[in-house]
């Protein structure tokens, strides 16, 4: 199970890549493995305001429907349109081609309440 060292994580199994005032967000390798084959991803439109810890989208596998939660607050500035026709990218490349949204965040301390790779690995171990 992959947990890249250059990312931060939420307890709801989202990952965050921070760069300047932008955050790229997706779901983790652990999450995609738990969900199974992903067949549908529902993401917000550009310009949507997101509130940290609120659900902003849905990822569906054959058997389940799961909410995706915003790890930071801000405005959606980019959405991965490839996931419309290729939702399976979330399974095959959750940290790369399976990225979901890019958020321009509003709070000055976006790392607040996010986990570092070791803390996230610990959480996954406890959940297995």
């Amino acid at each position, binding site marked *: 199970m992959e947990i890249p060292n250059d990312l931060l994580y939420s307890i709801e199994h989202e990952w965050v890549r921070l760069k300047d005032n932008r955050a790229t967000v997706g779901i983790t390798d652990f999450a995609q493995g738990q969900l*199974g*084959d992903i*067949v*549908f991803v*529902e993401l917000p439109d550009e310009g949507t305001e997101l509130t940290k810890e609120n659900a902003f989208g*849905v990822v*569906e*596998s*054959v*058997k389940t*429907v799961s909410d995706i939660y915003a790890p930071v607050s801000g405005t959606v500035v980019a959405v991965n349109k490839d996931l*419309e026709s290729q939702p399976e990218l979330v399974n095959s490349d959750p940290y790369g081609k399976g990225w979901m949204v890019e958020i321009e965040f509003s709070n000055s301390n976006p790392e607040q309440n996010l986990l570092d790779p070791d803390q996230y690995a610990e959480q996954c171990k406890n959940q297995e």
Partner: protein
Amino acid sequence: MSQNISKNLKITPLHDIHKELGARLVPFAGWEMPIQFNGVMAEHICVREKVGLFDVSHMGEIEIEGKDAKRFLQFLLSNDIDKMSNGSILYTLMCNENGGVVDDLLVHRFLKNHYFLCVNASNSDKDYEWIVKHAASFDISTKNTSAETSQLALQGPEAKNVLQPLCDFSLNELSYYNFKKGKVDGVECIISRTGYTGEDGFELYLRPKKVSQVFRSLMRQGEPYGIQPIGLGARDTLRLEMGYALYGNEIDNQLNPLDAGLGWVIKFDKGEFVGRESLLKQKEQGLRRKLVGIKLLTRGIPRSHYRVLKDGEHVGEITSGTFSPVLNIGVGMCYVSIEYSHLGTRLDVEIRNYFVPAEVVELPVVPSHVKK
């Protein structure tokens, strides 16, 4: 069958093999069963294109034997038992007095006075109690043989090629909805040409002590054909593409099976059977709704209980839905008012807070390949 004590779930004799093969195990009908191995989509396509092997040992088996066996089953079940011959199988309903369904099942005739039923795992105990209750005035013996019977399903276009070298009789002699006793890999089995997938295939009934051996032999024999172990996730998507009913979704003890299009297994002319009066009355009143196939026209996945609308009006509810790996679109089944049940009728499926356009389609939504 043994107890997984920590979770209070039953496990089949193949539990260790499931874990060995990397199964994702989940609770189902009181059992811990594999929902998937390699992935639901890959397993589904494997069954459609090659061959897959399912552990369905959680299903229930009930044996009926005795002088009144035929008369009893004729009274208990909706289909015509009189039409059966030795080695034949019938799909049938077992109804309650109100015309609702206690279970849908397969009845197998060994001899005129000896049968066995294969029933849904979720209804196993309930069905046996129901049978015992109704057996009181008949000269028969009933036995719940579920605990001493394991079951495998081998399904797919290559199923016959995989099974034949291990089987001691020619499978060309075994036609659809018939069964025969024989040996698979030297192990005594009942082999039936049945399945829940819409592909050619076989179901094997055998002793729990031997099922691991037969499972491994079939996997070995199937290797050149690309055989995969298949979980319950794909079992559901496969039957959904076929439009096969699932007890608890399309049929239950309240829903009218005539609405579900199951009139073909309800033989009013055969004489008295449990539920006949209620069902006949409903038939004579005319059906007001119908179970239809639904195909979404844009992205989205229909799921059980999602509302179905016509011009903003609520006209039905999805009973089962999924993403079809073959068609790459959301498909499902739902009950709608009769006037909206014609093929091509445009409907909307409410998914969360938006409406996805859909249309009524024929079932099965992909071709069936059973060897009728």
